């Protein structure tokens, strides 16, 4: 056990012994280190002004991803490489191609969002040199700009992509050295204290099990995309906190199922799920912004028990199960049974979500829908997952789950009943659209009224049918960027 947090900050190795569970990376950068290029715009991971790159070791080597420094806890940066805008430069020591393009295309006005935007675009430039306008928009889902209307920023990103130069970039050139240094740091459990707060970083998943047996009431922090706000917005005490973002990253795919380690992020899960269940990909890209998807994990999204749930409505529809572990004991629960009521899940103290098991059913008709005020990076008003099985033109099974319609993500039993046993045709979906009103009594709030939620929930059955049926007219909006 080490009482020392180690990480790389730009070109420096940092070792800290005094770190509190609730210390954020952003405060550390701005206040302790006076690296003021990284800005605070909202302190809740929604505006992206605090975007930095986080380099971490994965099975396929060292990768760099944009993250929100405002809700990222410093303790969760152990054995990582933090890259801030101050470190960004071109091969000649001058402006980086991204920075140059932003200047040339007049991509900044007030300039406050600019360092964050530059860092997101840098992350994209490294990971997808050929990114087109659509990929650029996805990369910028977590960055707000109030001045430019984004047009010059997208143009700058396209120009920097065309310019190239990834091979000469500092983070490429130094990748092996950095990876070796990070590898050295990642050894054994780390425990930190400051002013009565405790932060524990387990060595591996067995160590996590042990830590939770010792501290059953500890707050488990994975991506911190929600717990971060407990601290920055609600000033909650999260000590002792166990940081697990680096654990349970395993993925196995067999004929019949995908097994995702609970620590797999949205960003890691999306391309994998796309290969096996293509219909869900667009939905996954609408969860949070890029930074949030780089931090948030599927397991924690489930364990968190949100009434909307992002992935749970979809996963319930797909028939997912989860593995819960306490000490050496594991149990397997159908995801829909994990959610008991608002704020209550089937998880005992000291128990944690270890794995998510998603059946693959190639013959199933699958869809995932998200309705929100703004298309990207918005909290859902209504989320829905559909999985419908057809045999000989008849609906033999239907699993339809909604988020945002009740205190928990929940199946629409009446609507399912209206479908099962019926011919796969419009009348069944009309009947289900009506029946779903019996399944839920949604709330009215600032995201949507109960009336709207009910109306949309019904219409999603009509949408599902239209998408499955052969029609000449488009049934979905087109978002692709034009010439």
């Amino acid at each position, binding site marked *: 056990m080490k009482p020392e947090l180690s990480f790389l900050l730009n070109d420096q190795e940092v070792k800290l012994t005094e770190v509190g569970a609730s210390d954020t990376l952003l405060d550390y950068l701005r206040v302790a280190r006076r690296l003021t290029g990284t800005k605070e*715009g909202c302190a809740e991971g929604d505006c992206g002004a605090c975007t930095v790159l986080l380099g971490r070791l994965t099975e396929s080597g060292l990768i760099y991803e944009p993250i929100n420094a405002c809700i990222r806890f410093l303790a969760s940066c152990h054995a990582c490489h933090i890259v801030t805008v101050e470190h960004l430069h071109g091969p000649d020591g001058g402006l980086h191609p991204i920075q140059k393009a932003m200047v040339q295309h007049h991509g900044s006005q007030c300039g406050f969002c600019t360092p964050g935007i530059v860092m997101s675009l840098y992350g994209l430039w490294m990971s997808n040199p050929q990114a087109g306008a659509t990929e650029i928009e996805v990369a910028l889902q977590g960055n707000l700009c109030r001045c430019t209307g984004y047009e010059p920023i997208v143009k700058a990103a396209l120009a920097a992509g065309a310019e190239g130069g990834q091979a000469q970039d500092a983070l490429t050139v130094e990748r092996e050295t950095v990876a070796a240094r990070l590898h050295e740091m990642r050894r054994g459990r780390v425990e930190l204290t400051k002013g009565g707060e405790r932060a524990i970083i387990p060595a591996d998943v067995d160590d996590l099990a042990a830590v939770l047996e010792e501290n059953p009431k500890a707050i488990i922090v994975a991506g911190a995309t929600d717990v971060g*706000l407990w601290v920055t917005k609600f000033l909650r005490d999260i000590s002792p906190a166990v940081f697990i973002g680096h654990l349970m990253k395993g993925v196995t795919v067999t004929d019949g199922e995908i097994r995702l380690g609970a620590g797999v992020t949205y960003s890691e899960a999306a391309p994998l799920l796309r290969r096996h269940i293509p219909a869900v990909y667009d939905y996954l890209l609408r969860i949070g912004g890029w930074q949030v998807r780089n931090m948030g994990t599927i397991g924690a999204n489930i364990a968190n028990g949100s009434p909307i749930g992002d992935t749970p409505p979809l996963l319930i529809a797909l028939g997912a199960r989860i593995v819960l572990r306490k000490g050496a004991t594991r149990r397997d629960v159908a995801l829909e049974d994990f959610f008991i009521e608002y704020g209550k899940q089937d998880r005992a103290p000291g128990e944690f979500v270890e794995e998510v098991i998603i059946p693959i059913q190639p013959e199933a008709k699958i869809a995932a829908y998200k309705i929100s005020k703004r298309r990207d990076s918005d909290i859902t008003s209504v989320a829905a997952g559909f999985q419908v099985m057809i045999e000989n033109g008849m609906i033999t099974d239907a699993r339809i789950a909604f988020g945002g319609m009740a205190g928990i993500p929940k199946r629409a039993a009446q609507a399912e009943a209206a479908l099962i046993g019926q011919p796969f045709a419009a009348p069944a979906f009309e009947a289900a659209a009506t029946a779903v009103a019996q399944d839920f009594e949604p709330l009215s709030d600032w995201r949507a009224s109960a009336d709207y939620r009910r109306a949309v929930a019904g219409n999603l059955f009509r949408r599902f049918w239209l998408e499955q049926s052969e029609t000449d007219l488009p049934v979905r909006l087109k978002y692709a960027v034009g010439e």
Partner: protein
Amino acid sequence: MKDEIRGLAHSDTIHDSAIKHVTGRAEYTDDLNEPAGLIHAYLGLSQSAHGMITGADFSETLASPGVIGVLTVKDIPGVNDISPNGKHDEPVFADGEVHFYGQPVFAVLAETRDQARRAAHKAKLVYEELPFALDPIAARDQGMGYVTEPLTLKRGDAGAAMSAAPRRIKGRFGIGGQDHFYLEGQIAMAVPGEDDDVTINVSTQHPSEVQHMVAHVLNVPSHSVVVNVRRMGGGFGGKETQMNLFACVAAVAAKKWNRAVKIRPDRDDDMTATGKRHDFVVDYEVGFDDEGRILAVEGDWYARCGFSSDLSGPVTDRALFHADNAYYYPDVRISSHPMRTNTVSNTAFRGFGGPQGVIVAERIIEEIAYALGRDPYEIRQKNLYENGQLTPYHQEVTDQILPRIFAELETDCDYQARRQAVLDWNAKGGVIRKGIALTPVKFGISFTATWFNQAGSLIHIYSDGSIALNHGGTEMGQGLNTKVAQIVAEAFQCDISRIKITRTTTEKVPNTSATAASSGTDLNGMAALDAAEQIKARLVEFVAERWQSPREDVRFVPGHIMAGDTAIPFDEVIKSAYMARIHLSAAGFYKTPKIHWDRATGQGRPFYYFAYGAAVSEVSVDTLTGEYVIDRADVIHDVGRSLNPAIDKGQVEGAFVQGTGWLTCEELWWDDKGRLRTHAPSTYKIPLASDRPRIFNVKLADWSENAERTIKRSKAVGEPPFMLGISVFEAINMAVASLADYREPARLDAPATPERVLLAVERLRR
């Protein structure tokens, strides 16, 4: 001999801070080095929409770690008032009574910001709850009264013309407000000095106002207060008066404890405790003929002003000034109703009430068009002002250029064919419906408070030939400093790199106006030119004498000054001028000519000129969910002879997207306790990159020149293009109206959230 020089007027010069922006080296107030011993203030906000404070227990707050003290109304040495208009209706801290949920009641001072914030949450306030009204109609019904004097504009006899009109339509239109969502939140840092002195670094559009307010609250003369701002991370009107609170709290605390004090609210508190764009409910009536010609308009604009007047008087006035948008109303009577409500006091926001006038004019056009079964664009053309016609405030329109903009835009974007294609598409009856709309804007330029239309500048040329430029305007991203430097570079024919643009400070230019009303360049550019011309005149005199040349043969050419055929490098002239004891510093001044306005009679010429523009937007609407996408937008906008086409285009694009945000995804939502629940980017959604038009063509009307003698014949650009976003709103309305085969307009209230769109779809389907 001529040097290659960059950064002259009318060139695409990059923003002066662009490189600092992209490298993170541009300093905002929170990035400045902090003086030793700096402490932090954090506000405590009311948790009642209207109530008497009957008890306040700060014992836990004071016992919290790091806490130095609590600041309340009792600690204010001068006047507990930050009302910007002399009405004394807006306290720094609530004094006994709270008027909205989130009103500042006290501040906690502590060694760190986190300590101050945590301690502020431990205070226990007890309220005796009183009745409250949140929206303007409830306020009217409850007799809450006005926060400031209402205005009526009239010309002719609207009542008689309305009765005589062959057709009449009445309607009510709810128009939402908007949060500024400047990326850099409010912030101030006050450093105490000797005597009564205090220096304040603050994110503000109006340093002189901060100076005045702090002096007033501290009860010291204005000369004791220095206010500095190098740049803001966005303003949009949200830092025209709203920073006063933070500057005053920081200053009072700094003087009380004799330590530097910084105050920076969390985003949630910033959005809760500071004002926004006014929401309005408008009752309108239009009389028109069978050809779609407007005969009479009457209307009542009820505004949610909040608990105090702030800028609600001029904002609601400007709503009326733009209630005609670009259309001639032969007989008209329009009135404002600035309602007092138990909400945060609403304030300036890009357009300053203008958009809430313009959008009603466009609603009226739509009503007429649907009633007659015509394309609204036809009705727009038919009712455009002709030069010589009078506005409802009796100003003659003399610079109308919309017919040319319309013609170019219609051709450029193939409007007629695309409208037909939209109609054909909708006729197929699918779930995706389309809409297209062409809307204009005509926006009056000048502060309606005539005395604000003045500006000062200060230019120093140092003996090495480098130039320090200062003016009273503030930089919030709009490129003001760049444009003013271009004007000075042009005047001296020197490279822009020779000019250092310095922070705005009340020490250099006194009694400045807010950088607002789109007027920054018009006013400060002229003032800077005046200073440059003064120094140039002295240099001409000096060169003529020293190099023995007639004065009229002394010319400024790139990098040099010509004395007849002799070219003398600029540096050499300056060095020699210094040695010859020539005064190389000048203070410039400018006041806008020709304008006058008599509010009592509702007549005058409040605006020096008008800026024009038009946009065509096409949208697709999903009639199952109410979601939509902006397929394409085409804009032609008038900035006169552009000082910097790249920066101006950026203003047009940014304003367009901000305007669409106001009318689509940005929704302010209060709960039944009077709490604003959309108070952070998690709940209040401004447009993202993926919300901008899928095809976006923006052109400046490069043939336009200001008919008035403005700086280099340019026109103001900050606010006018904001209203082009209305074309998106109109297009969404058309797509929805297709559900009832265009028999009636969709009459969506703004913002047209997916929810509002779907509910309108369902209503029209029935």
